[in-house]
């Protein structure tokens, strides 16, 4: 696959759901070929921001601009990976991947080849005929990744893709994500509440304040993804720094939720 050379510019985005002011004047860049992680306390608007970035939600004000050109074989420039996998239970693994390729003018043989390729990439070849209900959470998320890769995305938008999984599966998939993203030089926007994930995957970690979410800081991590280890002292120090930026807001947000 041609490496994506597409980035995003988020500019002065504000949004409210009725009386609930969720995002306030949020601006940051998503550089091409890098992973931008959004972190912040519960309810700070991380997923809302991802929805706006991907065109699933219109912001009340502000805009998101795409920079660069998607590869010729890119079928869906801004492609999501969902927290709850969003797989169709009535379609097999291969059927779920096929869904996003159907009706896009791709020959049947090409479609089959592309499905086989992404199944191979995500180690799912042996499960192509399985129903989603027959798979573990980790395997289902692999299907979600395979489905996203099948459309050759320019930007991958990942909404807490590991939060529904147990800790061991999360660590395994985190390493797989890092390997995949590093090998392909993909542009990724990754939402998480888990700071260990943020420092493992992020080149830029955008720290949002509690609701209404504002950019509190942007932390840069230069170490190559495939060289990072979760117990690296430098990464642990960055994780501690992120926590120090979020902690007070997280405590406030927790009380807000309790009183809501």
């Amino acid at each position, binding site marked *: 696959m041609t490496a994506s050379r597409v980035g995003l510019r988020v500019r002065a985005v504000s949004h409210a759901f009725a009386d609930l002011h969720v995002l306030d004047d949020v601006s940051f860049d998503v550089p091409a070929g890098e992973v931008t992680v959004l972190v912040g306390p519960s309810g700070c608007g991380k997923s809302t921001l991802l929805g706006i970035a991907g065109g*699933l939600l219109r912001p009340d004000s502000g805009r998101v601009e795409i920079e660069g050109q998607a590869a010729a074989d890119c079928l*869906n420039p801004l492609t999501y990976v969902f927290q709850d996998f969003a797989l*169709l239970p*009535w379609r097999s693994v291969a059927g779920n991947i096929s869904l*996003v390729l*159907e009706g896009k003018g791709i020959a049947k043989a090409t479609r089959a080849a592309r499905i086989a390729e992404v199944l191979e990439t995500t180690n799912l070849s042996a499960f192509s005929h399985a129903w989603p209900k027959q798979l573990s959470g980790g395997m289902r998320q692999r299907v979600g990744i395979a489905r996203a890769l099948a*459309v050759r995305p320019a930007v991958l938008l990942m909404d807490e893709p590991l939060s529904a999984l147990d800790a061991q599966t999360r660590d395994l998939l985190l390493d797989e994500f890092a390997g995949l993203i590093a090998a392909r030089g993909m542009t990724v926007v990754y939402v998480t509440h888990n700071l260990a994930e943020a420092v493992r995957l992020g080149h830029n970690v955008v720290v949002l304040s509690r609701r209404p979410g504002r950019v509190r800081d942007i932390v840069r991590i230069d170490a190559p993804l495939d060289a990072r280890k979760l117990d690296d002292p430098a990464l642990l120090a960055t994780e501690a720094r992120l926590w120090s930026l979020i902690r007070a807001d997280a405590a406030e947000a927790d009380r807000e939720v309790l009183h809501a």
Partner: protein
Amino acid sequence: MREVVLRAKGFAPRDIPFAGAATLVGVLLGWQTLASLGWISTKFLPAPLSIIQALLTLGRSGELWLHLAASLPRLAWGWAAGTVAGLVVGLLLGLFTLARAPGMAIVSALFPIPKIALVPLFIIWFGIGEGSKVITLAFGVFFPTVINTLAGVDGVPRGLIRMGQSFSLSRAAILAKIVLPGALPAILAGFRITTSTAIILLVAAEMIGAEKGIGAFVLSAGNLYDTDNLMAGIVVLSLIGLTVSWVLGRLEAWLLAWR
């Protein structure tokens, strides 16, 4: 020292193999025995063997097929018309904001009307022929189909529709590949209700305004105190219901294999 006593007992009923069939056979045997001993008046409740005998006689004489030939097309056309119309309207109400509120107001207002009460009105409107009977069935089938289809569409997880939109699927593709399959379990569950409703309305419509048909036959046998034939007619209706239920069961097993 005492062993910990298991407290999580009960509340987990299981199926016992063949128990259902054995129960039915037992009831029939008991019924036949009581009738043979004279403990049940066969004038009011004929014995199972007499009912079978009546069924065989009706079959041999051709009268049974004559009535079935009148009833089954009414049932098929009435159910199919009500189902198609109900699916279309249910989908419109489920998918379009502008259709939902006005449509639901009409459906909610008309749904509670006992459809049997409308048979005389439909006879006035559409005549004593097939039209009034088919319309009665269709009308009765239409409302539960609308409500089940709407519930099915509403029950499709919004996250799946968002997924389709996020992959830039067309509206038609989202409808055909996400909404309809997602609503199918509720729609098929509704078929079980509407087929029963259709059989009830078939009998009612034939009792009010038909010369041929199982409903008309049952009414005629009742008027003549011919309880053997009356019960034979009821058995035929029951068999129609069981057959339809079996077909729907196979359809569900085929279409919903993923469950």
